[in-house]
């Protein structure tokens, strides 16, 4: 009880008529994923929920949103009344909405239909399309979104789709929104816009629970912070002005003083591993891009979402076609038309969408490793299960993957999956490795491990390209940073020149 009172400290009883959780826990079989959580969210405030993957954030969110139910012994009150949702509909009815990390919208329906799906407005026995469009449009305007409610959701950007989700919750008169990793797919500018909307809604008395890995964001928008670790509430702060170092220590239970390893700069005369000259995309997604990477160098690519970074990297790796321009590897011009061409030139891509493009989730680590490396595990085309297993184990050990060769890729955590993706490409002994969003959706502790891997690759003389929407990551790892905006390279900054302000200046130019 103490915790709740101290959380509510300095506030009158009426101000705290938001959501209060008492002793919330959740056990699945033998596994306790959440225990003894006490927290309060007051009207019009934003509470940040921090923790590594598996800390219990999602479970807690789903209990509040009625998707799962708390173990007996826990209770919640909402707006002064007992609150025990048995289904998401109960939570929505009470005015609590959960905005998922992955959009749950129907792409072929209009914004208005998506907003009212499952509760279409009726008028005289027929669907009241005009009424739905009108009411959806009001919410879109409230969010400052300049689109027509009759537009199909599939044609919207990810950022706009997310705002449709928020609009949907608002038409249900939501008074508390749970945002689960809302900025994962957003660039800096879209993030700023989301934060403006959050501020506006807070002023109207809407409360938020904000789940995120991005500590810099928390400092900008949170009123208070709750930190979970291994299902237990380990810290709460009445202010968001807590040092990143302290929050990271609380989340991981150990000190991560230096998240980014120091990567020695390559010698001045290091040979150029990859040179890209005047590359154009057939669809104009990138234009006239030129850059070089030296052996042992880490080249970062920054830019807002939609700047064409992923498209550029896919084209270089032969996944998508290029319209014109040349690619040179170790001084020799090469024609890369298919992924196999790139692999033969020992240029590999670790793609941005790990689950869709990186690994086959329902297959084993060993099989996943083999798919990229048949020439090594199956000389003359004959596979030997023992050889495949030994091959996978070798790389599992080298990269410290927590798993065995016969474990399914889908059973691994995000960080370990990413290590498997990197491992299967390392086996090709690449000269150039492109990592697109290498730590997307990966928790803090596991990120450091991925950074160590990147440093180790560069140390062996590999040319490394890191594309990331996380500015700290690009600045922390790269020797030089190329900034893309609207498909064009706006400038290349050295590590000394590159600070967040200068990068953003170029990125939004």
């Amino acid at each position, binding site marked *: 009880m103490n915790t709740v009172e101290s959380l509510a400290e300095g506030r009158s009883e009426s101000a705290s008529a938001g959501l209060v959780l008492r002793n919330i826990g959740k056990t699945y079989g033998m596994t306790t994923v959440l225990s003894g959580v006490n927290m309060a969210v007051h009207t019009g405030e934003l509470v940040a929920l921090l923790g590594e993957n598996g800390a219990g954030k999602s479970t807690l969110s789903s209990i509040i949103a009625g998707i799962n139910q708390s173990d007996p012994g826990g209770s919640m009150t909402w707006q002064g009344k007992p609150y025990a949702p048995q289904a998401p509909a109960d939570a929505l009815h009470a005015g609590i909405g959960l905005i998922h990390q992955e959009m749950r919208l129907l792409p072929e329906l209009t914004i208005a239909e998506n907003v009212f799906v499952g509760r279409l407005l009726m008028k005289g026995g027929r669907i009241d399309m005009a009424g739905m469009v009108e009411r959806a449009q009001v919410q879109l305007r409230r969010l400052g979104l300049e689109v027509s409610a009759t537009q199909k959701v599939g044609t919207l950007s990810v950022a706009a789709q997310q705002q449709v989700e928020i609009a949907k919750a608002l038409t249900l008169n939501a008074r508390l929104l749970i945002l689960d990793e809302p900025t994962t797919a957003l660039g800096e500018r879209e993030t700023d816009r989301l934060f403006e909307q959050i501020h506006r809604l807070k002023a109207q008395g809407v409360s938020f629970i904000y789940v995120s890995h991005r500590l810099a964001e928390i400092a900008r928008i949170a009123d208070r912070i709750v930190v979970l670790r291994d299902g237990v509430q380990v810290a709460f702060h009445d202010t968001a002005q807590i040092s990143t170092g302290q929050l990271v220590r609380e989340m991981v239970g150990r000190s991560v003083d230096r998240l980014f390893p120091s990567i020695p700069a390559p010698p001045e005369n290091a040979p150029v591993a990859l040179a890209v000259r005047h590359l154009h995309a057939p669809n104009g997604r990138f234009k006239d891009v030129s850059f070089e990477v030296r052996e042992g160098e880490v080249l970062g690519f920054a830019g807002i979402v939609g700047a064409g970074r992923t498209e550029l990297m896919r084209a270089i790796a032969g996944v998508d076609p290029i319209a014109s321009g040349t690619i040179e590897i170790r001084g020799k011009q090469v024609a890369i038309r298919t992924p196999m061409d790139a692999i033969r030139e020992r240029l590999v891509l670790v793609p941005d969408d790990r689950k869709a493009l990186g690994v086959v989730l329902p297959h084993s680590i060993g*099989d996943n490793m083999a798919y990229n490396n048949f020439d090594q595990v199956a000389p003359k085309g004959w596979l030997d299960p023992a050889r495949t297993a030994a091959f996978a184990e070798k790389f599992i050990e080298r990269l410290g993957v927590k798993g065995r060769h016969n474990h399914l890729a889908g059973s691994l955590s995000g960080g370990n999956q990413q290590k498997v993706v990197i491992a299967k490409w390392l086996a090709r002994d690449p000269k150039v490795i492109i990592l697109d969003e290498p730590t997307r959706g990966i928790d803090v502790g596991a990120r450091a491990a991925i950074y160590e891997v990147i440093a180790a690759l560069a140390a062996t003389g590999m040319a490394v390209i890191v594309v990331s929407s996380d500015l700290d990551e690009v600045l922390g790892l790269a020797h030089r940073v190329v900034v893309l905006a609207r498909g064009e390279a706006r400038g290349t900054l050295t590590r000394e020149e590159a600070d967040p302000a200068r990068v953003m200046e170029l990125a939004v130019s």
Partner: protein
Amino acid sequence: MATTTNASANTRTDVASTPEGAVKRPHWARKLVDYGPEISLLVLCVALSILTDTFFSFRNLLNVLDQLTVLGIMALGMTAVIVIGGIDLSVGSVLALSMMVMGWLSNVVGVPMQLCIVAALAMGALCGLGSGLLITHARLPAFIATLATMSICRGLANMITDGSQIVGYADWFSAMSIRRHFGFLSVTVALFIVLTVIAAIFMKYRASGRALYAIGGSAEVARLAGIPVRKVTLAVYSMCGMLAGLAGVVMSTRLDSSQPTGGMGYELDTIAAVVIGGGSLSGGVGTIWGTLMGVLTIGVLRNGLNLLGVSPFVQQVVIGTVIVLAVAVDSNKRRIG
């Protein structure tokens, strides 16, 4: 509080170190489910041996084998198609077209039978290639592409003789399914066994066979890994078509004739065999061994129900029920285990 933290942390680590899907499955129920197709086939055989005095005889078991060669040969190709995440609805019609082409060339045009057999295989492969091209280049869904091929091939099969059958082949040709060498092995059964072994080895131990699982698991992951997804897809559908053509030849030897209505509805039996054997229509899962279990289950079931005098209508109901049971057990593996 500190104790709670430690306890829950430990539980979590334990869970993480034995993830779902690891080979270590101590639970007996899980074992039972894993060998579901084998166990149910065994139970079926034992039950039929008790219920009838004719089922468990050398003669009858040879009959079962003879009867399932056509289905079995087609199911091999279908396994590869389903493993890459596709489906081929045209195999029954391709079988009919191939055997009509063979019969027409032999009995109307007068081409030597050996060449006619080759032509039947080529016809099947061509149909498969056509379906493949519709999928890889016209970007039709496999279901639609092969539905079209199914209709076209059935029509062509009927057009050749305006719907009438072609009867009477050389003695050596029909002997392939009748004469039992070493007292038990007909040429067609031997062919089926050899093809099954080759297919099983290919799917399990050849890199190009394993690549099919990568494509079915995720075509984009496979493409990024440098696997030529389109070429492989074309090859798989061509092979499936060719095996359907071969099944047509086998059916002709068994019937000593070519029927334009032959193989009607066989595509569904073939798909059922793969699915009973654990193949997943979402791709990336399925084995030749499993398919063999599926083929045997359907073959034994048909034979047994005939011996018991069950009407063909009831047989359809029974086979439908078996499909439901097999797939329900397979897709609920996690929950049951």
